[in-house]
């Protein structure tokens, strides 16, 4: 980071970093998921000893991965968007559209998710809910808590993106965002440009 960061930038990067770190940390669960399911398959087919919580465990890992990586994906601007017009607009138009649409179309949904999710998880904790797919299934209240937590991370990242749009509207330049790994096609294309 050669460029001197202003106060605002520092706050924005800090949230980027928290989102990114969280998303990546939970991303490692995919390796856990792969070994967990493989282990269950082998134990079941060859040793006739299935894991008791295999079914619940696999969706719990899946749900946690994608929910918790939501904010990280937003921080990298990697949520799918129809961009045929958008990419060709000048920065200020992009920023104005983003700013307006974040206020109109981002916060209503996410705030409802945070708010509803807290009640949802709280009820589950109160009854110490367990999965009913098998008798003596694993507890699910921790898993249900992932919902409001992931929504809170998204909310914070959304605030950051809104501020970025406001900054870009004023300055005409998109503020920098934190970079990390790129898809192979992007990486190869960048190498080719050098």
């Amino acid at each position: 980071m050669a460029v001197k960061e202003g106060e605002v930038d520092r706050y924005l990067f800090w949230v980027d970093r928290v989102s990114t770190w969280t998303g990546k940390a939970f991303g490692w669960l995919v390796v856990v998921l792969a070994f967990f399911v493989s282990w269950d398959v082998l134990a079941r087919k060859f040793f006739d000893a299935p894991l008791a919580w295999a079914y619940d465990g696999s969706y719990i890992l899946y749900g946690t991965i994608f929910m918790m990586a939501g904010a990280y994906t937003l921080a990298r601007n990697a949520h799918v968007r129809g961009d045929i017009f958008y990419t060709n607009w000048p920065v200020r138009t992009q920023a104005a559209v983003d700013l307006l649409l974040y206020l109109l179309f981002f916060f209503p949904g996410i705030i409802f998710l945070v708010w509803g999710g807290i009640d949802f998880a709280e009820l589950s904790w109160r009854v110490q809910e367990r999965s009913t797919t098998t008798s003596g299934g694993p507890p699910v209240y921790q898993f249900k808590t992932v919902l409001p937590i992931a929504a809170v991370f998204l909310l914070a990242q959304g605030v950051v993106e809104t501020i970025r749009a406001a900054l870009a509207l004023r300055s005409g330049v998109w503020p920098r965002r934190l970079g990390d790994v790129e898809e192979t096609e992007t990486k190869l294309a960048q190498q080719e440009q050098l």
Partner: protein
Amino acid sequence: MSPEALGMLMLFLLVFTILIGFPTAFTLMALGVIFGVIGFGSVDIARDLLVQRTYTLMRNDVLVAIPLFLFMGYMIERSGVLDRLFYSLQVVVGPMNGALALATLFTGTIFATATGIVGASVALLGVLALPAMLRARYQPAFASGVVTASGTLGILIPPSVLLILYGFVAGVSVPRLYAGAFLPGLMLSGLYLVYIIGRAYLQPNVAPALAKELRQHVTVPHALWLLLTGFLPIAVLIGAVLASILVGLATPSEAAALGGVAAIGLAAAYRRLTWQNLKESVFLTARTSAMVGWLLVGSGMFASVFARLGGAQLIGDFVVRLGLNEVGFFWLAQAIIFFLGWPLEWTEITIIFLPLFLPLLEPFNIDPLFFGIMTALNQQTSFLSPPVAMSAYYLKGVAPTLLLNQIFRGMYPFLAIQVLAMGVLWLFPALATWLPDVVYGVIGER
């Protein structure tokens, strides 16, 4: 405003905001919430609906296969298998006309099958196979066409993520879909093969035989060794993953998990299991899974509010009033999917727009499995149809000296073949329905 009018306004706003380019997942979610509050006249109902829809998607057992297949794909992509595959196949096909193009097609088919990631397949082939073909004095347009077409096969040939998503939204079993897509996928690859051989035979200057000084001189044992190390491991890996799904030995998620572990092993065997490669695979998997997962969350909320407002019913009535027969409706739907492929990505089409058609399949007596396979074939064309053709841009990204026009020109014959394949599938639906019926039995007979 009547509920139906609200539903229509909702659909209009959706199309409008998607085209403007706001992240689709959140647009869908917010439209669902806003119109839910207005339409149901209750904040609590809308809020609880959103939470319930989200949790339903978090605990879905079909979707578990998505991050696992993505991880397997990213890992295989980084294992260096493509280089070995291409080199070993190149040695095997020898110096004949169009040999490199055939090696590219085989490499692309196997690699795309294993990874299912279009962008990476095209870019990697563009870095490896394209320069090899250009050095051998292939016509650049033809070479680009081969690379872009071979790299896009992965979204159709199982195990494809597209078919998992379709199975999820249409309620069709994913293994049945995989069995159904198998023959059409092979047919498409076969048609490409016929075209490449034919063109190289008729116009040797387009894809000339390798010049003497470019030929690899290898002994027979060495060639066998190359095949054993370059071709066999990946072929066995992907063959085992597919076969175990098709014979019902494992669910798609289980096969994907085993495939992911095997991919780690493959990378280790090729000495590519570095911390960097593992990290990249994990992070990209997390990001892509989140992209798909949150799109499903947004779409789930949107669709349930839209249906409750009577929007789905309204679309149904509208289509009925068009007075189409089965064939008319089928192709109208396919045409809409084709054109949606211009501004949108296949994830958005599958998750957001296909559910609008699906309730109409039953009244029109269309097999959802057959419709799904045709749709997958159709969505492949959007990667090759200019001016948006993503494949062309992936290739241009890694081969800046090529002109976009050259790439487009090379893609047209393959696009024509894709359209031809759709026609053949329409005339012979058994291509898609025969294998699933043989493997899993005819629905209703069990």
